[in-house]
């Protein structure tokens, strides 16, 4: 579906800017604090103390934001993050929350410096709000970022930033995801950087313009205050740090931290053999009614200590699954951080100096305005992460020193279900079903993936308790469980995912539902080295179920078959109504496996069957392991069974 280009919109497309490019256009009344401080000696001791303090400050900012926020996606899913940057927007430290989000903070700050310094100006006490994924600061319009310039001695010393997913920022569909969107004008309109805080005070005209577009303006306003609070806290603490150690030292530590992260990453990369690795990650269906699969293609080339990510050949932008360049950038960082940088300072400003990117504008993960990008975060940005993870893991698998960092692709997408309507207390509500946060982790070269583990780029994700969900939303959960056989089989098994089944309960009105998420027909959560992919995503809407009668009769259904009614299999992109008597079942993706399943230690398979992680049937047909009734391995039958599996493979290849 072609979108009509909007002349003049190119100005909003951020790219990484060099310091020189930024400096050239800055007005004289906005002096930047010097970052080339070669004369400033910082002894190892001071470096370590200040570095620790910087870490503690972002940690504190994130904690404050999370405690103040009113959105479950923030408080529970940790779909937010905070960062500290140098004057140019190079990220010195990100908080350990959603690393996808902060990746493009730097792009947005560069943009603000180039486009806001003259008019309306960048002054102490200002904060800029941004929800424009082309500018950066987030991956889609729901990611609303707040940037706060930090001054010292009249010079711009750095920036703090807080960004969080807002549940609804307007647009055609509740939750701001519009499966039938033809372009961005069907979605929440991007808001480029706008000065919402002036002299430390929230400007109510600007705030109104922002929250007016939301269906839940009060929660959005509460979260705005949470971000203001987090930035203020960060500024106070940095000011204290400067008072104690002087500004040159603090700035120099910021620069050294980025250099340290870069150097250590380069050292690590240099030990790995040079080479090229490829991956393709598909998403099926880009919008309501679409029947195509859309590919992101990646060729990773490692030369010395440099990584080149070449996305040439990626399919054209389509429907509403696109992401902007900032989504591509975030997609790369969110795979690199957990795989390559777990024990390095989380300073993307340094880490990304090892990275070059080739990508064609107008493609799925480098969409041009006004393509629809409302789902970018969990669609093409996430698929980018999958492809990057697959390539990086193949690369890490080539050297003994890095093999233990290998991880197959984890849960490959987000099983989205936004529900909105009136809750049982008579108040409007709009929320996302958060259980898919419990994705399976991919298996490694020496361990199983963690079951219902979370998402690798959200180190501290969380799902709320069923009781909290039932208290705040008009739903009754029939089950919430780990799913047997959902982990990708392999010599090391991928982590299990789970499923939920819920039905409207004490809901005064039908529940409006937005359904979105690929990976139902194609596997996005691929295995490695012969490992199988994890389970695909599956949603089932059981219309007119017998649930109410069953419950009244004293029965608790635990399968779709028991529910009666008419099961429907929603496509990837739909909007619908959940009526009284309907049951909605969601099963999200498990982690990919590693290595050939018939090489898995039969005792581990037996333990998995005992713990309901693998069925007896799968143990025999996939792993070639035969168990007797008491969960012990029948060695002879197992040997025969595995030989049969191998013979079958040979036949298939030859046949």
């Amino acid at each position, binding site marked *: 579906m072609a979108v009509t280009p909007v002349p003049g919109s190119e100005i909003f497309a951020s790219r990484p800017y060099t310091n020189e490019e930024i400096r050239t256009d800055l007005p004289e009344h906005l002096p930047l604090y010097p970052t080339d401080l070669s004369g400033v000696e910082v002894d190892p001791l001071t470096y370590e103390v200040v570095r620790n303090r910087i870490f503690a400050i972002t940690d504190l900012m994130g904690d404050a934001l999370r405690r103040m926020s*009113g959105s479950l996606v923030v408080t529970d899913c940790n779909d937010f993050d905070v960062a500290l940057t140098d004057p140019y927007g190079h990220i010195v430290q990100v908080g350990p929350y959603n690393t996808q989000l902060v990746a493009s903070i730097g792009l947005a700050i560069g943009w603000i410096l180039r486009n806001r310094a003259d008019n309306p100006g960048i002054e102490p006490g200002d904060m800029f709000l941004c929800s424009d994924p082309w500018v950066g600061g987030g991956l889609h319009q729901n990611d609303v970022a707040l940037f706060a310039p930090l001054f010292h001695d009249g010079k711009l010393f750095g920036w703090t930033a807080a960004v969080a997913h807002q549940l609804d920022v307007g647009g055609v569909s509740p939750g701001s995801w519009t499966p039938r969107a033809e372009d961005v004008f069907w979605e929440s309109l991007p808001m480029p950087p706008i000065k919402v805080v002036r002299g430390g005070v929230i400007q109510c005209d600007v705030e109104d313009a922002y929250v007016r577009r939301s269906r839940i303006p009060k*929660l959005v306003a509460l979260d705005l205050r*949470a971000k203001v609070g987090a930035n203020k806290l960060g500024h106070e603490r940095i000011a204290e740090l400067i008072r104690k150690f002087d500004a040159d030292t603090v700035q120099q530590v910021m620069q050294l931290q980025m250099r340290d992260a870069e150097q250590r990453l380069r050292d690590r990369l240099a030990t790995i053999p040079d080479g090229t690795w490829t991956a393709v990650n598909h998403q099926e269906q880009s919008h309501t009614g679409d029947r195509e699969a859309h590919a992101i293609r990646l060729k990773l080339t490692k030369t010395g200590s440099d990584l080149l990510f070449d996305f040439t050949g990626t399919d054209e932008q389509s429907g509403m699954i696109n992401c902007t360049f900032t989504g591509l950038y975030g997609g790369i960082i969110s795979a690199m951080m957990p795989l390559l940088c777990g024990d390095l300072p989380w300073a993307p400003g340094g880490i990304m100096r090892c990275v070059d990117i080739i990508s064609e504008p107008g493609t799925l993960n480098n969409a041009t305005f006004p393509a629809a990008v409302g789902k970018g975060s969990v669609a093409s940005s996430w698929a980018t992460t999958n492809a990057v993870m697959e390539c990086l893991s193949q690369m890490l698998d080539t050297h003994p020193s890095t093999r233990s960092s290998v991880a197959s692709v984890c849960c490959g997408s987000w099983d989205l279900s936004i529900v909105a309507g009136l809750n049982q207390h008579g108040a409007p509500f709009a929320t996302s079903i958060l259980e898919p946060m419990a994705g399976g982790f991919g298996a490694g070269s020496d361990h199983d993936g963690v079951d219902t583990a979370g998402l690798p780029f959200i180190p*501290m994700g969380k799902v709320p308790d069923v009781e909290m969900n039932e*208290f705040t939303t008009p739903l009754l959960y029939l089950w919430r469980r780990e799913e047997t056989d959902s982990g990708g089989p392999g010599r090391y098994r991928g982590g299990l995912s*789970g499923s939920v089944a819920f039905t409207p309960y004490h809901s005064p009105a039908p529940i409006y539902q937005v359904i979105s998420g690929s990976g139902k027909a194609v596997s996005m959560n691929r295995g490695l080295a012969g490992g199988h992919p994890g389970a695909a995503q599956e949603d089932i809407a059981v219309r007119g179920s017998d649930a109410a009668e069953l419950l009244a009769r*004293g029965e608790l259904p635990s399968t779709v078959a028991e529910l009666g009614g008419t099961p429907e299999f929603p496509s990837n992109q739909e909007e619908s109504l959940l009526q009284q008597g309907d049951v909605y079942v969601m099963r999200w993706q498990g982690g990919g496996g590693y290595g050939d399943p018939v090489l898995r230690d039969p005792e581990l398979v037996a333990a998995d069957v005992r713990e309901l992680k693998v069925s007896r049937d799968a143990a025999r047909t996939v792993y070639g392991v035969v168990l007797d009734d008491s969960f012990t391995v029948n060695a002879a039958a197992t040997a025969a069974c595995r030989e049969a599996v191998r013979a079958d493979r040979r036949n298939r290849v030859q046949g």
Partner: protein
Amino acid sequence: MSAILGIDIGGTFTDAFLGDDQGNITTAKVPSTPPDFAEGFLNAVDEIGRKLGRSRESTLSDVDYICHGTTAALNALVTGNVSRVGLLTTKGHRDSIYIMNVEGRYAGLGPEEIQNVAATRKPPPLLPKRMVKEITERVDYQGNVVVRLDEDKARVAIRELLEDGVAAIAVSLLWSFVNPEHEIRLRKIIEEESPGTYICLSSDLSPKIREYERTVTTVMNAQVGPTLRDYLAPLTEELELRGLNGALLVMQGSGGTVSAQDAPAQAITTIGSVLTGGVVGARNLGRKLGHRNIITSDIGGTTFLVGLVVDGEPVYSSSTTLNQFTVSTPMVNVTSIGSGGGAIAWLDAGGNLRVGPRSAGARPGPACFGRDGEEPTVTDANLVLGILDPKTFAEGTKRLDVDRARKALETRIGAPLGLDAEQAAAAVFEIQNAQTADLLRRVVVGQGHDPRDFVLYAFGGGGPAHCFAYGADLGIKEIYIPLGDANAFSAYGLTTSDVVLSAELSNPATYPFDAARVERQFAELEAGLTARLEAQGVSFTSIGMRRQLDIRYTAQMFEVPTPVGSGPLTDADMDTVISDFEHTYEQMFGHGTGYADAGFQLINHRVFGIGSTAFTPELPIARKAESEDARGALSGTRRVFLDSRRGWEVTAIYDYARLTHGHRLEGPAIVEAGTTTVVVPRDASAQVDSLRNIILHLDDRRP
């Protein structure tokens, strides 16, 4: 005559503190005796008797009650040496304790471990999946029965568990805290099938919303209840044989107590038993000294522990983390990091100097212990810097090897960084001080307080040596170092504690709250507490109740405990509660962060029932010195390095044994006090108070 006895059992030592109504104090310290800690308990009682020159019987016959800090439950859980347990839960929700709300993959880990996502794992499960039986039943958020309990199926499941040989059965059903009917019925069925099996209902133990935490709490309680029962029952019997007429009370993590008889049913509430002793001791010493706001800091061998007393009461949290599981039991908030004296200094892959969290422990111990330890620790750095004396460490019981300490610092830290051994030691000292200061600030500021409004208490083997640095970093002016008769600090805390019980109940509601309903909930909780206080076997002079509501803005995840006045409550009281909540919230998160338009939700009701005893032991007042001049306690001088801006300084060394009330000394100085070493830096002074505590004044010479 009547007396109160505190017995605090730690991993290494068992401390006893006896105080009577005549103002006499007797303390004893004996080795702990794992795995049978009861032996050490009884030895400590004997040691008290020996010091008093009295027989066993007469030692105990005057004791009104014994307050006991025990690690029995905690040790069992940490080592996995627990009873075989089955769990009954609502059909469809068995996996709650396996999914662990996802947070189980990282809960309780340090920030750097959390950042290394790919290396994180969930802990081994609490129990095998097949030991969890799904029960057909369902209650909704209002307490309505949606699916009636299928008793026949439940009975079959219970029989299967019993055949499997379980020692205890935990029962945790959805929404049981609103309607416990099904849990109660299940208990009856278990009792019918197997009288005597230990049963724990979530609606009894932890009637609070959030099924994951509630179920974990119930299961863990069932795992250690029988253990605690098997420890306390024979101990109680033995104490009675030895003449104890009073009650045996067990310290809880909340800072309250529970009778030995009731303790097994609430075993999980005793897991913080020993950790909290220091905070409770500080609260009590603070009352005597007139301190309402106290930061407690304790540097032991492996950890640095921080707690807070605000407005005269310890700060609580409603849950804690154990083996990465979230346990819902009120605990005095004690935060820790691996920054004890044994914390190892090392260089990370980028060549950055780090201290901890790994500890050399008791074995091999710091390099200077001369065993097999080759890695430099904080203790090694302190030794090289002259802060510790190799001859007087630990009352002279352990001679330290300076050369080994130097060598470890030089080879592991100095050489790679281009520093000599002394510079390396100074760097370790600075980093240790910076990271302890960071934790302190995080605890204090993170809860919305200004550290300058607090006095700092420093104890444990290492606290008094480092507190001047982390205290100054926070802008604190006065640091109290409890010494004298308060050195068995936790055991002292046990004896001076009021008997405090707590009860909680969830009944979530949205604003405006129904005052009558809230009052009913509180009245119910208070009636239960009064009965439990009376069952403690202690006579109280008065019983008081303190009420709290946990409130949050709509759909926030975190509640703020907000005090509520005594009843009967009116709608006006509800408005007061809301404005108090908003005030506290803005204090925690900054002016302008509150947002009333979002609406309010009430999540939990909580009451503390406080029984005051007839007397509390008084610490003896020391003889006042004739003058401030402390030179009589001088034992020499040595070179000490405290601050890289000053380098080595000749420093006076004082012997604490010869210091008394009224003495004053100027920094730089070091006071050697047997089990600990006090550092007084330049530009600071120290004085000895009437209880022989040392008070450091950091801001000026003459306060």
